[in-house]
């Protein structure tokens, strides 16, 4: 147990230590401070952000209505959807990008947003599972019927009744999407776009290794925060549903 703890904590410690050192080995925030002005960082950061936003939007528009519709009207299709959304886990990114670069039309291949479109595929398993769990936790049919019989139209029902009930699972889906997009290396590297992870690796050749490790550690801390947030959201969500079923 202790050994396992050491194995898991040591690299974190070493990374932090290295990131918070200057080139002489003294403690300082120099590397972190130098990060924003490091050549190429701003461009990579901006590109990653744009990709993340586009991925979030496309993924929400595509997955949310489909999942809700299937839950409401076509529960028989759900296993099929479940199977389809597990495919991106079976077919790894390296294979997907290989096929995409072979088959995508040129105008799309020359745009960075091709990456976003593929990230939507990559995050599908997580987004679908998160939404699926959220929809299972609420009594969707009753909610929709109640809202409809009280005179709400479909848009109002979705916007004011269904989506607020899915808030925590939607949020966790989005956080996972963000974490994946900001950390994805395989596809971006092979599609030759300088996103943050690709930039970190290429910066290796440049002068200051501390800046590089600082960037990696920041990415790590960011992912950590995001996923911790998701887990705590999940927990508060399940607590609420438990309370609800307890009352019924």
């Amino acid at each position, binding site marked *: 147990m202790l050994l396992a703890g050491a194995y898991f904590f040591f690299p974190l410690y070493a990374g932090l*230590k*290295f990131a918070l050192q200057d080139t002489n080995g003294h403690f300082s925030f120099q590397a972190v401070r130098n990060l924003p002005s490091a050549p190429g960082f701003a461009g990579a950061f901006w590109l990653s952000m744009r990709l993340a936003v586009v991925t979030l939007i496309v993924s929400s528009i595509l997955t949310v209505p489909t999942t809700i519709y299937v839950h409401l009207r076509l529960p028989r299709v759900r296993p099929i959807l479940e199977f389809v959304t597990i495919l991106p886990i079976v077919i790894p990114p*390296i294979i997907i990008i290989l096929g995409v670069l072979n088959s995508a039309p040129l105008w799309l291949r020359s745009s960075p947003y091709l990456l976003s479109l593929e990230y939507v595929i990559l995050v599908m398993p997580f987004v679908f599972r998160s939404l699926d769990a959220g929809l299972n936790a609420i009594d969707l049919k009753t909610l929709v019927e109640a809202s409809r019989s009280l005179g709400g139209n479909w848009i109002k029902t979705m916007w004011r009744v269904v989506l607020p009930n899915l808030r925590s699972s939607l949020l966790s889906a989005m956080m996972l999407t963000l974490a994946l997009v900001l950390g994805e290396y395989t596809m971006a590297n*092979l599609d030759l776009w300088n996103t943050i992870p690709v930039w970190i690796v290429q910066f290796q050749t440049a002068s200051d290794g501390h800046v590089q490790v600082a960037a*990696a*550690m920041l990415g790590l801390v960011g992912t950590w925060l995001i996923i911790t947030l998701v887990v705590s959201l999940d927990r508060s969500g399940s607590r609420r549903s438990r309370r609800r079923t307890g009352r019924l």
Partner: protein
Amino acid sequence: MTFVSNVASGSDTGVSEPDATSTSSKRRLRKILRGSRPVLALAPFVIYTFLGLGIPTIAIVWAAFHTQQGQVTFANMHAALQGSYLLGFENSIKLALLTSIVPGVLGVFLAYAIETSRSTVLKRVVGTASGVLANFGGVNLTFMFIVSLGATGVLTGWLSVIHLNPWNFGFDLYTFYGVAIVYMYFQIPLMVLVITPALGGLRASWREAAQNLGASSWRYWRYVGIPVLMPSVLGGILLLFGSAFAAYATAQTLTSGIIALSPIQIGALLDGNVIANQANVGYAIGFGMLVILSVTMILYSLVRRRASKWLR
């Protein structure tokens, strides 16, 4: 709440009544509209997935069996199963076996130790940490290991103070075993995540029943615990196998592509570091990987079915 649901179910039963009064052509039109509604609603999702996932996969399979000029050929497959590419498959499979079985077994013990411990704080911390660490592969992880176990890393420094510098004993982070050590970092947490629900499904009453019938702890594990857990453990190991077999980012950034692994070779071929007329060999390797991964996943689903017999 009960009032609302009564109204809702009431309106549900009365819904088909007004249809009877409308004319038959109108009814038919409505029927067609209603019948096509599921198709329309699912269409964007299906089309998107097909374009983004289906077509690329088909493209790989097609290109694997064609020359660049578009003639049918088995030369690509032939080339992919020879020399350095065959070595790539061998190394990938070996690496995946090593980094699925060892972390798989370790993960089970770790998960069991945590599951049986009484500290809820520990359980929660490990649960969260596993979720985080299992998603950690890639660039960030590589750098963490370089600064701890690299030639000038922190741990290497500490160990060399007591004259145990692993690099002096033939250790090298940028080799097969180095990659394996780094892979464990996300494979063990993944196994803990996968196996914890199964461990939770081992009912206390089974253990009590076994004890009442006079079974020792060893006999309980031999005849109850291990047989019940085995499918889940195997399933977890298969999952780890797939994840290690397909991983690209960690190995690529750690070794800058010097060890022969199938995903890295695909990347190199895609980057254009190729001998002429071998361009389509990359697709053949991709096809080979797809075959191996499909077999893994079919086995996984079979094992899962077996596992769900006892644990639900």
